[in-house]
């Protein structure tokens, strides 16, 4: 009996370590000097790593969490001498912020409207939202690409921001939440003479803060990790968000990778810590299908 109780804890413990270890690795390695990173992980045999395991002229990684000498050199270089990285970090901010703000305004309004509209075919509209929501990015990029051509914004961030602003996820989540909202409250407000807008603003909106928080976490996780759209629309390397460029850093500037990574990870971790409860709620909401 005692054994049965301990097993789940052990298994979850192992799973949690697997989940967290790569992040710990990135943090720990960010305090290594650039030269040490290269000598540890490069495939090339060089003077500094000649003592390590090699086979057929290939140097194999010397895996480690603890730097031989702890240094903040990489961070200093990143923050003071690498305008390129800072600029691409800023690009990410420019791509994410308008989407978050826009969704937080548009999605609750639309969900509220859709929930209250009396029209035979309104579920068809919702069905369309769901279809768009479920399709992979590569399919959605085709219409996005065509509109961007019509509006002549293919060279601009708007080509990425505008479709993301209208992505149906927000409307879907908030409508799921609204379905459990007591109808009597809205009707009572209407009886008191409140119009659709006043009912929304004073009765419905204040009750949506937790689902909107959930939406923010989900959207941030997705858009801070933007890759697909940027690959299609962004031509100039330095216009890329850092989420895409990190792939080039591994090969082009490996010594800087871990510091840049941590720098990019921190906003994601902050949003996660602030919105963790809401994240669970948001995922669970997204599953209420029929």
């Amino acid at each position, binding site marked *: 009996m005692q054994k049965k109780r301990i097993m789940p*804890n052990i298994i979850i413990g192992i799973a949690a370590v697997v989940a967290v270890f790569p992040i710990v690795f990135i943090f720990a390695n960010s305090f290594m000097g650039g030269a040490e990173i290269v000598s540890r992980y490069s495939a090339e045999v060089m003077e500094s790593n000649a003592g390590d395991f090699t086979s057929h002229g290939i140097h194999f990684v010397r895996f480690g969490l603890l730097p031989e000498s702890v240094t903040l050199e990489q961070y200093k270089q990143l923050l003071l001498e690498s305008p390129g990285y800072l600029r691409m970090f800023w690009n990410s901010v420019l791509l994410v912020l308008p989407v978050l703000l826009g969704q937080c305004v548009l999605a609750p309004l639309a969900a509220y409207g859709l929930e209250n509209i009396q029209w035979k075919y309104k579920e068809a509209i919702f069905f369309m939202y769901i279809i768009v929501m479920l399709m992979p990015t590569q399919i959605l990029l085709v219409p996005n690409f065509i509109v961007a051509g019509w509006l002549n914004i293919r060279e601009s961030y708007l080509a990425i921001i505008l479709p993301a602003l209208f992505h149906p996820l927000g409307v879907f989540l908030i409508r799921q939440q609204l379905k459990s909202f007591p109808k009597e409250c809205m009707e009572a407000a209407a009886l008191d003479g409140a*119009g659709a807008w006043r009912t929304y603003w004073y009765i419905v909106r204040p009750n949506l803060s937790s689902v909107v928080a959930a939406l923010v976490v989900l959207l941030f996780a997705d858009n801070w*990790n933007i890759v697909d759209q940027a690959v299609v629309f962004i031509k100039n390397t330095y216009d890329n968000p850092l989420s895409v460029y990190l792939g080039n850093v591994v090969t082009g500037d490996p010594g800087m990778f871990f510091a840049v990574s941590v720098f990019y990870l921190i906003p994601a971790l902050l949003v996660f810590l602030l919105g963790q409860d809401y994240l669970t709620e948001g995922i669970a909401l997204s599953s209420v299908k029929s």
Partner: protein
Amino acid sequence: MKKTKAYWLFLLPSLLGVLLFYTIPFLFSLYYALVDNMGSQSFVGLRNFTDTLQNSLFQSAAVNTAVFVGLSVPLSMALSLFLSLCLQGMKRGRVLATMLLLLPLVVPSGTIVYFWKVLFDSNGLLQKMLLQLGFNHEAVAQNGWAMGVLVAVFLWKNVSYNIVLFWSGLNWIPKTYYEQMALEGAGKWKQFTNVTWIYLSPTTFVVLLMSIVNSFKVFKEVYMLYGAYPSPDIYMLQHYMNNQFLSLNMQKLSSAAYILFLVIGIVLLIVFYAQKRVTDAYQ
């Protein structure tokens, strides 16, 4: 009547956006898929579709994508079901455990890419360990496990999404059912097959649906690990599509998009109806 008209104004901004940025241009792209090129624009029927289906690059991309989905979806579902059951069995520390398990979900794929390379590259830790165990260099260096690496990397990031789904499904099952079974002397396994598995099945279909949808997100990982031109055994439909964007070939692009749309649409509809039937059966 007038009252409900006001509600349309709330919906309108979002509806116009969805129509303008998704629905209308997607319908319009069907036209591109049916003409020969952007210059003369004369109709060629389904030729673009048959060309795409016969394109060897498209075929291998479709096979790779199917293999990836076929591996990652069942693995992810089994693993997350198992872990959510373990979570349920925990007496303490569940909140902290859930938080740690969810962490990878918000980690941008690119920030962790060097870790995977250190682990799995041709000079990585895994290969090093295999060599030290005495496997010979040629067998280890064969690059046949790129797909396995992708599945592992994908599971690491996305499994917790399914854990949350299963977890919330598990909490819907009344505790009294288990107590009843325990009174009748049923063991853990019997309780699982007779209560959990049955009452969880609506959730299971939702997880299946979301897993299929989410499995296409693996492109982020592939792109960060291997760039725009990975080795042929992990060249996915997403790469195929991206390369058509770069060459601005609207005919190939639109026809491929429609083929993919139809296939995914049919798969999702099947799952959706199966879920509806199972849900109705238990309510």
